[in-house]
């Protein structure tokens, strides 16, 4: 087995290395990928068409928004997939919400530190979501940070306390609603008579002109992504850390 694996790996590596021979140089600004009309269109026209200086956000949420919707769906699938595989529901459904006497969680110092920094983490996460147009970040990164803040809460104060804020039912609703916001916004464009996710028709709905309509729609879409990612990150952690029993954390 090991030998077979080694041979296979070596063959694959040899193929790939042989292919690198006729690649354009690394950092070459005239490589086909870099001077192709597509990427130059993104770089040159983005700000004019969408008023979003962060091209990555623009491409992510507008030009290839269809991809990003499915990216969110992938996260969603992972979340409900983990529940479907691992979760074992014992007793009535509501029992997973009930508060236990939390002898869990970590020491006093950690709790105090967490209670001090958690607000800042969450505020920063919201900032990342909202400011993704102008700076690195966006719905996904912000969502992950928000979810991480809840994970931190669970680590410090025990899972049951965290579940008090973010029960399982609520995580599911949040996750579904996030995609609802995203896809629903696209369907709104459909209802206005243009293609799916064609934000430009919504300028009648949103303040500002067509470009601002695109920009605002991106913000809304990113918020949807943030909803889903936050919920799923937390439910991932809470299921994996308790073998799907959701009774007490690490």
């Amino acid at each position, binding site marked *: 087995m090991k030998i077979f694996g080694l041979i296979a790996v070596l063959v694959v590596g040899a193929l790939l290395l042989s292919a690198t021979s006729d690649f354009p140089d690394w950092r070459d600004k005239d490589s086909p990928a870099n001077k192709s009309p597509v990427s130059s269109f993104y770089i040159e026209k983005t700000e004019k068409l969408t008023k979003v200086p962060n091209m990555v956000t623009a491409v992510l949420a507008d030009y290839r928004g269809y991809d990003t919707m499915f990216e969110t769906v992938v996260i969603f699938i992972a979340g409900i997939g983990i529940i479907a595989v691992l979760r074992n529901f014992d007793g009535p459904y509501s029992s997973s919400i009930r508060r236990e006497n939390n002898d869990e969680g970590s020491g006093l110092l950690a709790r105090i530190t967490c209670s001090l920094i958690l607000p800042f983490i969450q505020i920063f996460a919201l900032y990342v979501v909202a400011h993704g147009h102008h700076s690195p970040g*966006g719905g996904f990164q912000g969502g992950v940070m928000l*979810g991480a803040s809840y*994970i931190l809460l669970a680590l410090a104060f025990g899972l049951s306390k965290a579940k008090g804020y973010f029960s399982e039912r609520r995580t599911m609703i949040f996750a579904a609603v996030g995609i609802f916001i995203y896809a629903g916004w696209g369907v709104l464009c459909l209802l206005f008579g243009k293609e799916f996710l064609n934000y430009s028709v919504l300028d009648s709905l949103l303040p500002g002109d067509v470009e601002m309509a695109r920009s605002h729609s991106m913000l809304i879409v990113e918020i949807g992504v943030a909803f889903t990612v936050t919920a799923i990150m937390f439910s991932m952690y809470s299921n*994996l850390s308790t073998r799907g029993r959701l009774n007490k954390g690490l």
Partner: protein
Amino acid sequence: MIWQFDIIILIFLVIAAIISLRLKDLLGASMVFGIYSFLICLLWAEMGAVDVAFTEAAVGAGVSTVIMIATVFSTKRRSKD
């Protein structure tokens, strides 16, 4: 855009990857994998892919390490290889 950094980080990457795969203690392996993710996040920041770096910092070094450690805690810690 300094290629010296680039090369150094790449070399460290390979080392981190090998270590994390050779450690018999799965907890340690997960830790080293976190380091690996952090290194690669540095690499991307250095290559100008700030969004990717941000995401990797949040996901790779953050969440995926955490869930991996969670799994290690709830299963066995030592592995045979």
